[in-house]
């Protein structure tokens, strides 16, 4: 994983550096064009979709054709139609409107979890990497312990203390993602610490907090931004999964995981009920992954593979 990155290796390939390529040049430049467009384009497309979903979440009340909790027992489990683009659920509520409002909770909860994880995680990683010694060992052990809990189990453990609900879900996802942020910031600090600019800062009498925050932290922004967008993607998956299991938001809250959990009971009569909330999750996660991958290409000079 260390020496040659796949993409870089293939670039060598095309330049005729390491290997002699026998493939026709036209195809190869076509492929290269496809790859290039894939990279730059995917970042833009990903960003566009994520932003669009944020707008949908913010403007849910304005753009939803119906109130998300408006029941109509005369029109339950309707297939998609002109008046209900995504159909209706078991109480005759408009699924499209509920998907719009669901984006709110998902984005808010996953965003909060990632923010918490990056703040606490990178603080631990930064200080552990900078100070080393016993502190490093202890924090390393503690993150190892959290690493040993699959996120669903962390969720269950936290729900047993706090009870089911979105706060439990946020804490569980934050705790599960925290080790990753800690690990990446720590390894970045270990590398940066050796550079002369840090010694120079010491020499001119800068304080330790100043060195950490003002000279070291800026070098972490790249890797952390990448990690945040990829972590965001995971957080959305986890948030939906935990809500689906009944550990997070509870019905009748419009939330994608909760909707899927109810939709399961009507799967054979009205499959679209389970289809649309699921597709919304996939679209959001996919776009976040696109952004993360694209940012990695742009920002991270060290090209972490995680």
């Amino acid at each position, binding site marked *: 994983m260390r020496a040659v990155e*796949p993409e870089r290796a293939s670039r060598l390939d095309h330049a005729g550096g390491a290997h002699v390529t026998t493939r026709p040049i036209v195809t190869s430049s076509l492929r290269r064009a496809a790859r290039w467009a894939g990279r730059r384009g995917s970042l833009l497309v990903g960003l566009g979709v994520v932003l669009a979903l944020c707008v949908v979440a913010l403007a849910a009340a304005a753009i939803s054709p119906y109130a998300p909790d408006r029941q109509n027992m005369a029109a339950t489990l309707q297939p998609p139609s002109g008046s209900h683009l995504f159909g209706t659920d078991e109480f005759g509520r408009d699924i499209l409107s509920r998907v719009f409002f669901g984006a709110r909770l998902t984005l808010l909860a996953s965003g909060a979890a990632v923010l918490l994880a990056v703040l606490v995680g990178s603080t631990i990683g930064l200080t552990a990497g900078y100070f080393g010694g016993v502190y490093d060992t202890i924090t390393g052990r503690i993150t190892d312990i959290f690493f*040993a809990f*699959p996120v669903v189990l962390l969720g*269950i*453990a936290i729900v047993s*203390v706090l009870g089911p609900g979105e706060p439990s879900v946020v804490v569980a996802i934050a705790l599960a993602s925290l080790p990753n942020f800690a690990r990446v910031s720590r390894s970045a600090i270990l590398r940066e610490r050796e550079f002369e600019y840090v010694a120079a800062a010491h020499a001119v009498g800068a304080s330790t907090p100043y060195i950490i925050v003002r000279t070291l932290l800026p070098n972490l922004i790249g890797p952390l931004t990448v990690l945040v967008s990829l972590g965001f993607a995971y957080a959305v998956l986890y948030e*939906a999964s935990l809500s689906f299991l009944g550990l997070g938001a509870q019905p009748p809250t419009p939330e994608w995981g909760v909707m899927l959990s109810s939709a399961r009971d009507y799967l054979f009569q009205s499959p679209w009920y*389970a289809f649309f909330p699921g597709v919304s999750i996939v679209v959001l996660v*996919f776009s976040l*992954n696109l952004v993360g991958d694209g940012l990695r290409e742009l920002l991270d000079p060290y090209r972490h593979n995680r």
Partner: protein
Amino acid sequence: MARYLIWRAVSVVPTLLGITVLVFLVTYFIPGDPALVLAGAEAPPEVVASLRHQWGLDQPIYVRYGVWMANIARGNLGESYFSHQTVLRLVGRAFPVTFELALLALVVAVAIAVPTGIISAVRPSSWFDLGATAVGFIGLSIPGFWLGIMLIYLFGAELRWLPAGGFTPLSSGLPANMRSMILPAIALGTFASTQLMRYLRAGMLDVLNADYIRTARAKGLAAAMVLMRHAMRNALIPFMTVLGVQMGYLLGGTVITESVFALPGIGRLVLNAILNRDYQVAVGIILLIAAAFVLVNLVVDLLYPVLDPRVRLGQATSWR
């Protein structure tokens, strides 16, 4: 070698202890007084107090942790509030289902990841590679539980090839058992396969550009031989690490998959326990699964020297 094995085995002890502390803290902070719960709300305070004393609930926290640990050491993980069966017995009954599910999911994941990863690495930037990367990328974005629901709809409702859920034990014959397990295994294994594929592809690319591979090719070894004997062995090392981590995700993923497909495994046991507030069962299982995850990773680490004799033994770091 022996020193490495022992050092690595000993190094999981603090992690395991940390896990017990964490899980104990969870039990400690669970709201509600167990004595009050068991004595009943109308019980006189003296009775509750004597129950508290009897169970050591009036002891300081570290004493309670000690007692709790002593119980665990004796294999006593507590019992269900409702069925009054011991946690170990409940887990023992559910374990084979979960084990089979995790194993089959792993088989699915490896069966998808290994051929795709190798072909992608041998032909980097080919249409196959680009396609596999794209499909893998989409696979990475699909929640396992939704994939499960869609598979149930497709194969259970539309095509009617497979049952829509429920479990048929192995004792009813392998074919019937497989029919109930194949969809859950696919739903659970797909996500893991995308990760494994990425790592195998990257690892293979790394190795295939190495000098010794060029030498092996130059001396006229068959391409398949170079790939399997020379390249695979080194590419497998990072792959194994990811495999260990994925095992942990699979263990966690069984909770979701078992819930979607109504399989009577550990995952559904722990989920139902928490939703019914049967805390002893929930906490006992959390402890067992976390410990299992640590041990799986230990086994993977212990396999390193077997896969890679060059591994630097005894290298001590506090962080993974």
